[in-house]
């Protein structure tokens, strides 16, 4: 194996292990309270600026948290709870856009930008590698010698 690749392989191993550790699902199901809190973080507080229903102390946010908790305890699925909020307030109650319609554009644009940027970088690097490296000729060396003397 090319020894120059070893540091890159080691780096890839460390990055991969870290990402796996961070993304690995933790064991056990969350308590209803934790589950309800996590869901409340998905919803915008209707009468605040930029706060989630989990973070706001407004009356509506408190009512939303209680409503979500009750629905969780009654066994409703996350999708049913999301839909109940959307039915009252519309899609804009969601802090994260859904992965459909205009929401798909919001999620997709950064990925497109990343792919286009990476493609551009690869093309640029290949172009630079194809350019002949400059090396000094005998005439260049003679010129330098003359200048030094």
């Amino acid at each position: 194996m090319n020894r120059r690749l070893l540091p890159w392989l080691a780096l890839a191993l460390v990055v991969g292990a870290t990402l796996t550790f961070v993304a690995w699902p933790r064991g056990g199901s969350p308590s209803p309270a934790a589950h309800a809190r996590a869901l409340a973080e998905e919803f915008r507080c209707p009468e605040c600026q930029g706060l989630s229903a989990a973070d706001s102390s407004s009356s509506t946010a408190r009512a939303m948290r209680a409503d979500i908790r009750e629905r969780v305890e009654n066994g409703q699925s996350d999708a049913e709870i999301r839909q109940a909020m959307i039915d009252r307030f519309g899609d804009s109650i969601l802090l994260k856009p859904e992965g459909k319609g205009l929401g798909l554009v919001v999620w997709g644009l950064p990925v497109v930008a990343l792919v286009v940027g990476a493609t551009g970088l690869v093309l640029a690097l290949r172009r630079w590698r194809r350019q002949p490296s400059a090396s000094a000729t005998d005439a260049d060396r003679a010129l330098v010698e003359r200048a030094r003397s």
Partner: protein
Amino acid sequence: MTHPLRWVALGVGVVVAALAVVLALQVGNDQLQAQPRSELLGDPAPDFNVTTLDGEEVSLDSLRGRAVIVNFWNSWCIPCRQEEPALKEFFDSHRDEDDVALLGIVRDDTESAARRAVGDRGIEWPMGLDPDGKAALDFGTRGQPETYAITPDGLIVGTKYGPASVEDLETLLATARGQR
């Protein structure tokens, strides 16, 4: 432009510009507050149940058969005060009509403050308490005052965000009665 790199650069530029435009359009734009109409229009009204300051239980079922105007209100909100003369005039015009009900629901306020304001300001229509905010949530309210028109068979057919005029209230009532 013959070199592919220039096309790539142009593509990146277009994507970045599009993102910048989208972000610029979103700055300061609260979609919920800017939303012009209720999601509940045309849907069955929430099955609310409130106790009025007089101790009477009022629910959607108890108002079946009547055109209902529900007004979310509280004691400290300035637009609610601005709206009160219109509500008083509207209530006086229809207080003897059996097929009409005007119901206030206290939103985001304490019972004592609401009771004091209702007494001091001479509000005569029933005022329901909603201490846990359930009715306000079920109607999808974003603030107060907000006014909803409900048909005799329980459908929401009209909404008004902000202070309603007498004309607004008459329009809502006519809509609830199926006259518009």
